[in-house]
């Protein structure tokens, strides 16, 4: 699958192994982080509804989801440390880039992390202990804010990997036969110190909010599916209440994600990374060629030409093997399943919110019945695959570079795509070796941690009959 024809074959193997480990780890961390962001939001919304409607059901839900979010936060934070040390050990030279350029979001993330880790236990431990309910709600809101602020900063870093922020300078010192401590040939700096704030430029904000909304959609879809399954079997009023809030929430967020943020994100890829665009849209040709559909979506005409994937040399193209996965993950998973999620959540929202109107029509009952019966399975599946599709598209589409930038070609060819390569001399630890047993062990841990978090949530939420035990509190 080769990143550079100049690299030995063993290095390409190590790169693939390292990418697989990182990809699984990041997806697992994303699942935990998304679960935390989604469930703490549910807790805060539920407590708000309790305070405004004085409905005990919402109090119970808020309390339960605050504990569930804490479980996901705890395991997710530990997993974040695992991912962080994955950077130190596998992509070691990324550390120098952090220090010389992209440190600001990491630095600000510390404050976000402190907010979460201190306020979240306070929120969970003070249910029923703070006399003024609104004060308790504000604590929860601040804890949730810490979580979203944390995500904001980390997504700013991820945005910079795909789109080099304005003012960032990437120099390849290899031309002058120089290295930094013999580790990397790439030096990343800013044109001036205050450009460090450009980590949060408007393009990064589109990327960031696209990611944050995706996290909330995923979790709310999963929770909606669980409640929908329960409601189909038990028809409890508290389940109906939750569905009337969560499913419209999914529908609204999915609409914003697709029509506003997704559109802007596409415009950014079109503008800043034509090679990624070619790879994810499946434009597998060489030279310029008309793509009528993309032309219409991007420019409102049918005759705009685009550079095909094979217009660029092999050593800068994102890998497609073992199959043409990028268009499948982008068009198949992210776009198509995202649309289907919107259809399911939108249809069910109309049914639950305007039931009096739609229940008069037989066709509406048939459609609603179909959506309700299939929703517990399709909604989480669509949301999960759309999220994975988006993450893979974004991260694999920029390979073999980070801090990607394209500039016009001087000889009339396709735009030049540059960045810091992930291979030797760029990001990867030159001392790295990954024996099979180590890869297997890391993957087991990467998969087991989210599974254990889910198991702990199951232990907490399942109905149980406990033996009386004596527990003395401190």
């Amino acid at each position, binding site marked *: 699958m080769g990143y550079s024809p100049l690299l030995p074959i063993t290095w390409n193997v190590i790169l693939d192994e390292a990418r697989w480990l990182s990809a699984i780890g990041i997806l697992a961390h994303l699942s935990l982080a998304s679960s935390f962001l989604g469930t703490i939001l549910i807790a805060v919304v539920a407590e708000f509804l309790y305070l405004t409607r004085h409905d005990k059901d919402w109090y119970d839900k808020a309390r339960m989801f605050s504990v569930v979010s804490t479980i996901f936060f705890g395991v997710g934070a530990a997993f974040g440390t695992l991912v962080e*040390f994955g950077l130190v*050990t596998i992509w070691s030279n990324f550390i120098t880039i952090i*220090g010389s350029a992209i*440190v600001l979001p990491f630095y600000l993330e510390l404050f976000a992390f402190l907010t979460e880790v201190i306020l979240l236990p306070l929120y969970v431990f003070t249910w029923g202990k703070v006399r003024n309910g609104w004060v308790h709600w504000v604590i929860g809101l601040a804890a949730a804010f810490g979580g979203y602020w944390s995500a904001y900063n980390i997504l700013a870093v991820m945005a910079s990997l795909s789109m080099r922020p304005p003012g960032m300078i990437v120099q390849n010192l290899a031309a002058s036969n*120089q290295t930094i*401590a*013999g580790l990397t040939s790439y030096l990343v700096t800013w044109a001036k*110190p205050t450009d460090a704030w450009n980590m949060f430029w408007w393009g990064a904000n589109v990327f960031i909010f696209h990611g944050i909304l995706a996290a909330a959609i995923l979790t709310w879809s999963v929770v909606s599916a669980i409640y929908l399954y329960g409601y189909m079997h038990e028809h409890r009023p508290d389940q109906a209440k939750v569905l009337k809030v969560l499913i419209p929430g999914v529908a609204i967020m999915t609409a914003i994600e697709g029509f506003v943020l997704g559109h802007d994100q596409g415009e950014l890829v079109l503008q800043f990374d034509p090679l990624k665009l070619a790879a994810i849209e499946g434009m597998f040709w060489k030279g310029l060629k008309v793509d009528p559909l993309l032309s219409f979506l991007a420019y409102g005409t049918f005759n705009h030409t685009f550079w095909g994937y094979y217009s660029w040399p092999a050593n800068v193209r994102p890998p497609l093997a073992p199959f043409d996965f990028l268009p499948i993950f982008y068009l198949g998973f992210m776009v198509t399943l995202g649309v289907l999620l919107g259809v399911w959540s939108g249809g069910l929202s109309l049914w639950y919110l305007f039931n009096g109107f739609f229940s008069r029509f037989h066709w509406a009952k048939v459609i609603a019945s179909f959506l309700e019966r299939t929703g517990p399975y399709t909604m989480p599946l669509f949301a999960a695959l759309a999220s994975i599709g988006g993450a893979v598209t974004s991260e694999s589409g920029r390979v073999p570079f980070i801090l990607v930038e394209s500039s016009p070609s001087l000889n009339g060819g396709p735009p030049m795509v540059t960045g810091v390569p992930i291979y030797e001399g760029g990001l990867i630890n030159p001392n790295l070796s990954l024996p099979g047993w180590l890869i297997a062990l890391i993957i087991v*841990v990467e998969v087991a941690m989210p599974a254990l978090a889910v198991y702990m949530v199951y232990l907490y939420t399942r109905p149980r009959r406990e033996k009386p035990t004596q527990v*003395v509190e401190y």
Partner: protein
Amino acid sequence: MVSPVVVTVALIAWAFSVHLPLVYTVLGLGWLLPTLELLGYRSGRRTYIDIAHGLSNYLIAVYAIGGVFGTIVTVFLAGLLPVFTNIAGVLLWPIWGIAIVFGVAIALPLIGLYYRSFNRLSPIKHITVGYAMAITLTVIPAMFRLVFAFINYPAGVLITPSSASNTGFTLSVNLTETLSNPTYPPLLLATLFGAIAMTGILLSSIHGWRYASSRDEYHELGHRVGNIVGLTFGILYSIFVIWYLYTVYQYSPTVAWSILGHPPSYLPSTFYDLYKPTFNLSWMFYMNIVLGAIILALLVVSIKVTSKPIEALKLILTPMLMDSAEVMNGLAHVPYAIVPPVTAAEALIKAYGLSFALNVAKWLTISQLLTPQINALLSLVSVQPGLLLGSLVFFAFFNALLLYVIYAVLSWRRSSA
């Protein structure tokens, strides 16, 4: 404008001084809880198990907050000393990898499982989970203390001149030799026993305070067990600290000079300028000895008499001693991030000349590893000092909030019991 070195050292020292007492407590609890359970099942005395169950409520919270401060340390290291952290990552990657996979990725779910499975698993299974948790928690200091030993004495490092490198040399490492670092075994054992001792003393203090008012069996047992653990492991800690100081004296001249207040006797006077520490911390060393003696005396008295003032003093002085000893050990390296060994200095002078050896030594100092010319955070702070000032206010606020939350959680849970 404050010196960047002072800012860097202060921020890292602050993060460590909050991080370490918390992770010491986690390590200590990791071993104490299954042991208390075991004692309970062996003796048929339920109170042991109740104490373990009560304490397990706090394990995850302490671990999570300690872990956050560990992340803060990492971000400070990457942001302020990027080249140093990069080199540490490249050279010592298996050590970081093992620490994180076993010590974090496996330990945390085990802590959760241990807590959630109280009274849901059979006693033997639950105790097994507890000891598995303790072993995986011990992997963290087992690996990280190797890094601390490495900055005392970088055993196994090979230095090769390189005109292409901006440092003038490249580094490689023989990990087997790294493991043979003489400062490593005493440091690790002192950490382990110190953590158990500190946790035991904290346990005895809290229970002793309560026992002074309530006189019930539960607090009497917690107080007694905590005192015995604190005393036994405190003595073991002292023995290994003495061994550690001996190895540091032999192998890490800057650290020994800073702690003892004078250069080691074997150091040639021609090397005095090279190895002179920035701080003379002998006052801190003697203060720690006095603190240790006071705590020992308090423990002995506490075994005979239970009084609130004694328990309060134990509760305050023990983490203070731990923090003071750790900060002293960390600051004693300054001006170096990694102290160059005397034998290496001699060998480099012999092989490549004095100026090369001095260049290597220069690149091992904190001021050089800050790489101010390419350090984005330092550059930003130099033109926007309000960012640093605001950060310090924010950190101070969160320190206060953290102490309040710990107090509030303890008092609220007590009032609801």
